[in-house]
């Protein structure tokens, strides 16, 4: 019988060793992000390559012949690492399995900031491609000298170089003889011509899937160090609550505790064992005394409340002919509530402070920016902090990761020498993550006799979609004794993304108003586009109703871009044969993301029960055009998943709050979609190999809500203008 005592024991030292430098073999089966890479003529190097030109900063040849690539970005399911492995293997004629990708780590990778929009990700892939091409040139030159033949007579194969005519191969490692690559990435640079690609554009099953399916080490949660201790924090009941007192003696009588840490209103406890830490957390939660400010209660409903908090406005678009006052216009307003990232794994971090060095392991979106923030927060030089990013569960933006990392760092500083693992509870993640902001949209239009929109006006209200920057964005920074101020800048382009029409309407006026709302908010998948396109695409159906033109035709008559028209045509064709059923409606929505990126049209089929008003979302169809497609199944996966997540937001999700207190604290008080409500999904891709590849991670979020509420309106005649759909229909009718 195997004996294991109570101290943690693991046979898997390798993960620890490498998670000090966690190297992960990543998949290729993802949207490639490679379009810009294929533009071999690109005369400009990405900025990051100009700052970090040394090939050795990006690539390393290992003794076993494989190549290790360093990226300053993190993998968030957007396919970054797959694409990086793919371009490296392509450029150096390696097998994909010979490429290892290391994600953001201040000890090893270049500084590429936070991982965010798809355009920045494209640059990262491009950088690696150029670095690999430079490495190829250096290795070929070395081989030419070693073999005494011109480099044109040589070829690369699986980590070796040999003469095209055959003969003894020299491995990359032999050629370098243990040295690092020493060239720099400089133009001009020869990239492999696209016609010779043998890996790009092929669907390769994800390398990481096999490890995932057998429970291999993968995520930040799987990190275990010898002697690691467990920490938990005790969160205030509300944003503005302050810690008055807690009974340490009582706590120590109940649970064996290594240390409690109090800094202002921040309270944490460290125990040897994880369950002890959980018990200590529960004990403290019961007994801690908090002060809660008494706010005047307001009777304003939420949209009006948020509007009343407006602090700035800006003109996004001004029509050549101002919106005519005095003529009858069609008006509608729409509301989207605060929505959670709602990652399935609550945030987690590990930190250790020893010999003047602070090490942090996190699932944040960027290693270097987090290091600098924590340096400011804890007032220690950035050079004494190391941040390593590991995978977390899908979070789709800025969730509690940075907070957990900063808190773990603070706790580790107070308990030097050992690794401290901090795990947030489900309730903490629900109540303390930065949400996607609530938004309010007021739309107006005037229709000509022929049904064309002659004037369009949109006023939107939004809080910030980006809160990072000053350390005050972190929960712990405002809770400490010497607090940082939370400097929130609600303005920014994220709020009015897609607030103007892609449809051809000459006179468009768009105003963005920014409010300083009660909840902490930051970036969530597609930013303002979800709310803006919910409004715009609902409004388009309302207008088409007034114009008495059916929704497909009404949209198409306002479009000139053939690619836009084609996604709508294809979708129309797809759903044309659907039999008409009682109490069932089919609704559509269209967008071009950011009015400049990928195209998508979605149809939703919804059934509304005539007496109970129960809504059944039967099916969602999508037709997309994202330019060149590298890995079709990966694109389909992201669109399917995006539609289902968006259906969840639209049907069910809303962060409940009262003053400074969040009420949605579990999956019961903040329900998300479960299997019974999951629709069937079908995705069609229009592939355009010669068009620039566009990211597809966010596009499904933008059109799914409009399609669903339009379908509901057709099914039962009731228009939903406030999300989530929830049970509004039944309430209205009782």
């Amino acid at each position: 019988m195997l004996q294991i005592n109570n101290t943690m024991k693991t046979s898997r030292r390798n993960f620890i060793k490498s998670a000090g430098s966690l190297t992960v073999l990543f998949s290729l089966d993802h949207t490639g992000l490679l379009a810009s890479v294929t533009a071999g003529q690109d005369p400009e190097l990405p900025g990051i390559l100009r700052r970090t030109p040394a090939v050795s900063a990006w690539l390393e040849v290992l003794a076993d012949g494989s190549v290790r690539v360093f990226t300053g970005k993190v993998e968030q399911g957007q396919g970054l690492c797959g694409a990086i492995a793919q371009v490296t293997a392509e450029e150096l004629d390696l097998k994909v399995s010979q490429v290892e990708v290391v994600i953001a780590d201040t000890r090893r990778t270049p500084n590429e900031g936070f991982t965010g929009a798809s355009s920045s990700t494209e640059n990262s892939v491009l950088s690696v491609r150029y670095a690999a091409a430079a490495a190829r040139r250096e290795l070929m030159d070395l081989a030419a000298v070693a073999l005494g033949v011109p480099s044109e007579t040589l070829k690369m194969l699986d980590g070796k170089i040999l003469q095209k005519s055959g003969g003894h191969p020299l491995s990359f490692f032999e050629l370098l003889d243990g040295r690092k690559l020493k060239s720099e990435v400089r133009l001009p640079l020869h990239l492999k011509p696209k016609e010779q690609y043998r890996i790009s554009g092929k669907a390769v099953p994800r390398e990481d899937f096999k490890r995932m399916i057998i429970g291999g080490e993968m995520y930040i949660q799987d990190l275990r160090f010898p002697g690691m201790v467990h920490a938990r924090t005790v969160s205030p009941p509300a944003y503005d609550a302050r810690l008055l007192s807690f009974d340490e003696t009582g706590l120590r009588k109940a649970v064996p505790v290594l240390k409690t840490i109090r800094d202002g209103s921040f309270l944490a406890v460290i125990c040897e064992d994880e369950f002890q830490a959980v018990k200590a957390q529960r004990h403290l939660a019961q007994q801690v005394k908090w002060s809660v400010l008494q706010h005047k209660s307001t009777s304003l409903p939420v949209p009006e409340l948020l509007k009343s908090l407006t602090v700035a406005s800006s003109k996004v678009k001004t029509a050549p002919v101002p919106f005519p006052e005095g003529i009858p216009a069609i008006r509608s307003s729409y509301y989207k509530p605060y929505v959670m990232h709602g990652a399935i794994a609550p945030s987690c971090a590990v930190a250790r402070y020893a010999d003047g060095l602070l090490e942090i392991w996190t699932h944040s979106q960027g290693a270097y920016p987090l290091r600098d923030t924590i340096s400011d927060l804890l007032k220690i030089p950035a050079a004494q902090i190391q941040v390593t990013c590991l995978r977390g569960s899908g979070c789709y933006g800025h969730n509690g990761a940075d907070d957990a990392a900063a808190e773990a760092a603070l706790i580790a500083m107070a308990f030097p020498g050992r690794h401290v693992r901090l795990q947030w509870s489900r309730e903490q993640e629900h109540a303390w993550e930065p949400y996607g902001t609530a938004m309010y949209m007021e739309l107006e239009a005037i229709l000509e006799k022929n049904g064309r929109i002659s004037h369009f006006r949109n006023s939107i209200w939004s809080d910030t979609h980006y809160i990072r920057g000053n350390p005050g964005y972190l929960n712990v920074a405002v809770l400490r004794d010497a607090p940082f101020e939370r400097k929130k800048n609600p303005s920014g382009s994220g709020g009015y993304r897609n607030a103007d029409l892609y449809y051809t309407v000459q006179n468009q006026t768009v105003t963005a108003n920014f409010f300083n709302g009660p909840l902490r908010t930051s970036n969530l998948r597609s930013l303002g586009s979800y709310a803006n396109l919910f409004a715009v695409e609902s409004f388009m159906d309302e207008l088409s109703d007034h114009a008495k033109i059916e929704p497909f035709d009404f949209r198409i008559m306002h479009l000139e871009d053939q690619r836009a028209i084609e996604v709508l045509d294809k979708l129309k064709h797809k759903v044309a044969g659907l039999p008409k059923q009682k109490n069932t409606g089919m609704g559509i929505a269209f967008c071009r993301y950011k009015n400049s990126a990928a195209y998508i049209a979605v149809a939703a089929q919804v059934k509304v029960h005539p007496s109970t008003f129960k809504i059944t979302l039967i099916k969602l169809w999508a037709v997309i055009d994202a330019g060149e497609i590298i890995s079709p199944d990966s694109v389909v996966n992201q669109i399917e998943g995006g539609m289902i997540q968006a259906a969840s937001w639209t049907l069910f999700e809303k962060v409940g709050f009262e003053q400074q207190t969040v009420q949605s604290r579990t999956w019961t008080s903040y329900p998300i979609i479960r299997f019974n409500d999951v629709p069937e999904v079908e995705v069609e891709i229009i592939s355009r190999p010669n068009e620039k590849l566009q990211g597809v991670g966010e596009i499904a979020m933008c059109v799914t809500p409009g399609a669903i509420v339009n379908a509901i309106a057709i099914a039962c005649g009731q228009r939903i203008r406030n999300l989530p759909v929830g049970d509004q229909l039944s309430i209205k009718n009782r």
Partner: protein
Amino acid sequence: MSVIVLTVNGRKHRLNIDPATPLLYVLRNQLALNGPKFGCGMQQCGACMVLIDGKAQYSCTMPVSLVEKKSVITLEGLASAEDVLHPVQQSFLDEQAAQCGYCLNGMVISAVSLLNTSTHLDDLTIRKGMQHVLCRCGSQARVLRAIKRAASASDK
């Protein structure tokens, strides 16, 4: 503290431990397993599922003392050999039924349990049987396909 003898993936482990410790923490910390995941700790998400005597159960709230004398199987224990996946794992792999993969443990364990207990699996039965497992990435459509694939393979 008391001595608890656990049988996990066919191996016996003798642990000196607080008998109230949830099984999930024991599996992850004392036994260093990664399959079962922490998601909520309150039976709301299914990330922590394990098979106890062949049936999918939440490990996040199950005191370790209650599973003595029972057989616990985790995601790691499903495959019969290094390169031979359990048919349900294989069908998930074939359908590439995940994105981030954090929910995969709950999905696979619950599907195995479902296939163990029901003879005929139609769409509705599968959905009902999977209702307790959450996925934020929206992989459910693929998961449904994977389970149907596994079910039809086992019908043959």
